[in-house]
């Protein structure tokens, strides 16, 4: 193991795990956004509304996540005062 020091191995494993979490999220988001945006029979190309729904979907999900966290923290602040 002289060619691969412990510290570089730890960084490599960490990066590979981060990549795996990213891939896993992309699969989950595709599943969710497909169900939300592609409601009719598939065609030879996406309609304009299907295409814009798909490209907005992930960002609005992440905005929802930020909104939720902000709301919970505001409620915590209010309950402290």
């Amino acid at each position, binding site marked *: 193991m002289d060619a691969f020091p412990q510290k570089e191995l730890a960084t490599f494993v960490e990066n590979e795990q981060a990549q795996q979490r990213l891939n896993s999220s992309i699969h989950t988001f595709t599943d969710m956004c497909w169900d*939300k945006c592609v409601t009719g029979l598939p065609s030879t190309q996406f309609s304009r509304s299907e295409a814009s*729904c798909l490209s*907005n979907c992930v*960002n*609005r999900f992440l905005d*929802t*996540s930020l*909104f*939720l966290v902000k709301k*919970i923290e505001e409620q915590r602040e209010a309950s402290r005062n």
Partner: protein
Amino acid sequence: SVRNEMALANAQQLINKCNEKCFQKCVTKPGTSLSGSEETCLSRCIDRYLEAFNVVSRAYTDRLKERQERP
């Protein structure tokens, strides 16, 4: 501590579920940003989901206690 780790994991799962259910209910046609009515819906949905969690939690733990008292 183990207790704190479990409480944190529990809170994280609740936030994830709440996020999923409320996005599903309130953002049916994702646009270029969250609209005012989407945010109103999300705010109410979050309150209701956390309330539902408490109602279900109490109903379940009450049932388990009952079963212990009358086996």
